[in-house]
């Protein structure tokens, strides 16, 4: 087991748990950036320096984009459904499950730490994606979900190709940009980061 991969997976998991736990949008965006920075290092062998650079730039740009709306609105957000702490605990538990399941996964070609980090980021991302009502944490959830899924893929298929890494970098930036734009629209129309009431009736749309 590579120590670099293990350390990177641990840091990414702690970052994801913090992103779930915090109610400050700025800290959530920074924690997400940290996760995105650590995710490409959870590999054995490590990707090419060029690929690492691409992912590094993508992580920084995505984090910057997520911070943009916070400058124009109050950064304090509501807690998640279970209060955040419990959900952060689930994220750490997912890491442990991945770490234990990695060696026994019959098809796995990558490190067990990738599966552990992938599970943790996936859980945190899906949690945020499903339950948050604001643009910053929507972007946080979306990018964590995608990074987690990519880590699970690398756990089964080994270190991804350069094309895949470049595509993932593009996708992370695109998703962060889309979430930031939606957050700015929410600020422009409602004066806050939250999106507002959910409309269930199709007749209300349009």
């Amino acid at each position, binding site marked *: 087991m590579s120590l670099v991969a293990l350390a990177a997976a641990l840091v990414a998991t702690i970052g994801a748990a913090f992103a779930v736990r915090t109610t400050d949008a700025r800290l959530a965006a920074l924690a997400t950036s940290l996760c995105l920075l650590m995710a490409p290092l959870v590999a054995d062998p490590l990707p090419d320096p*060029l690929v690492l650079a691409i992912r590094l730039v993508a992580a920084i740009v995505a984090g910057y984009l997520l911070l943009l709306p916070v400058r124009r609105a109050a950064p304090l957000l509501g807690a998640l459904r279970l209060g955040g702490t419990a959900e952060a605990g689930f994220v750490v538990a997912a890491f442990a499950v991945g770490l234990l399941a990695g060696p026994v996964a*019959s*098809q796995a*070609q990558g490190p067990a730490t990738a599966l552990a980090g992938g599970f943790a980021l*996936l859980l945190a*991302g*899906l949690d945020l*994606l499903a339950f948050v009502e604001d*643009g910053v944490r*929507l972007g946080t*959830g*979306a990018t964590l*979900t*995608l990074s*987690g*899924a*990519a880590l*699970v*893929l*690398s*756990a*089964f*298929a*080994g*270190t*991804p*190709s*350069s*094309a*895949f890494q*470049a*595509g*993932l970098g*593009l*996708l992370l*930036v*695109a*998703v962060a*940009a*889309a*979430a930031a*734009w*939606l957050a700015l*629209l*929410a600020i*422009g*129309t*409602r004066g806050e980061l939250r*999106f*507002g009431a*959910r*409309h269930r009736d*199709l007749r*209300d*749309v*349009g």
Partner: protein
Amino acid sequence: MSLLLFLVLALTGAVVTLATARWPAARGTLALLASAACVVVAYRLDAGTAVHLGDGSLVVTHYLRLWLLCASGAILLLVLAGLLLSGRERIAPAALLTLAASAVGLAAPDLAAGLLVLCGAAAVAGLVAAGRVAEGSPTLRVAVDALRVTVVFAALGLLGVAWAVEPGVSLEPTTVTVAYLLVAAALALRVGSVPLHLPAARLAVSAPRGAVPLLLGWLPAAAAVVLLAWFSVTVLPLQPDLGWWPALPTALALLTLAATSIAILVQDDLGHVLGYMAIQGGAFALLTMGALDAAAAVEARTWLLILPLTLAALATVVLLIERAFGSGRAVELRGWIRRAPATAGALVLALVATYGLPGMAQFTARQRIAELAAGRPLGLVGLLAAALALLAWARVAWIGLQPVGAIVHEGAGERPALPPGPDQASGPAGGPPPIAPRLLGLLARGRLAIELNRVGLAALVALALALLPVALGIGAGHLADAAAEPIPTPIATPSPSPSPSSSPSASPSPSISPSAEPTAEPTASSEPTPSGSPGPSVGPSETPSPSSATPSPVAPSPPGPSTSPSVGP
């Protein structure tokens, strides 16, 4: 011409049209120019070539060329229709970005990477739906849900591919089943199958009409083509025993066919009808997953190119009706056909293109997919259930044939109108006027003529859009052959006699089957490159690609998508 040039044009066009949003006239002109340039370059693309970017590559196949040509043409006509009807251009950046993403997504042998690029484009293009957000408007939530769907789809797709990324390796049945179910779930979410249809249905109503073919047509169809390609080269060669699990996507797809028909029948708003037509068309992709048959996958590639074209035509017709008469509700459109016969013709052609007639490619594709997935009796029942939607369109037509109602009477019809005659100006000595004022006068009359005939001209555009899928269906472009050509994959398999100069049109295209899998993309070290650019290229280079030019009849090992460098080029 090179795929790289196409990408540069499309991306530059997207950026420029986005940057000129404050100048509608300039933006409209630039959008038309960029789309037209994409059409020309797509037409001139050489199938069988590859563009190398670093250690990756993009392979141009006949199917990709046809896809880009059709998409560029449809986007050009959509932009033109939007300009004619509203005087403003709203979809060009998203449309051109969609073109670029489709080019990369469908040309990348690394299917997972292609999927990611398509999802990135979908995430950004989905913002079009939030373009007219106002206080209290639900369109923001619709755009948020669209982003959520895109992200979850990408995650499910990646997870599915992760479980079965090594083709040719004997996988445990449980592993294959999990991968199959994850990819089927991703596909169901992306095409909006029941019960996951609400985001797509809401998107169809809240997005600008011109953007509906992009958001519910081109992008989901391209993503479905990529996922089905993975399915064809990774799962199908294993001939897996998945138990009763394939019945699940089949049942969902059949349910979608029936439920969307019912929704279309009870809906009065043409925007909703358009959305459910898109969802119904996408159900055939999910049905393909249930078929577990290579032939169904080939038919799905045929159908997934025709579907966005038919949606583009239908969206233009709906936009025309809404703009001309100020209403999209069927009950308020009494006599619309009397005022807009060309639009009615476009609607009929679009419906013929959607459902097809016996002998047309779309008819065959839908029928074969349904029969291969659900068997003959049940498949035919599904097709009949889908065709029930035609009753709703028949009702719209019947209302249109009634005497003209008040709303339609006040609207703008297609009747041609001529601008007033030119002033009888004369030159200084009573001779003919100078050439410059005459030209300016002609230009002004031309602009006035366009202004007076916006609806009629847009109806002609709609007719042209509807003719595209009909032409494809009756054999133009050899769509069926292009759909059956091998799928480029990154697995390097030895080719006994590579002949880069030949093209698939010269040699019969083999169908996708477990025993006749495509050869690999050219590897820099092993494949001959007549252009003399072998070796790991730093910059982009273009070489003939034997992957689509000379598919080997029997591949030693079935290729598939892989993200591992150990099996990459």
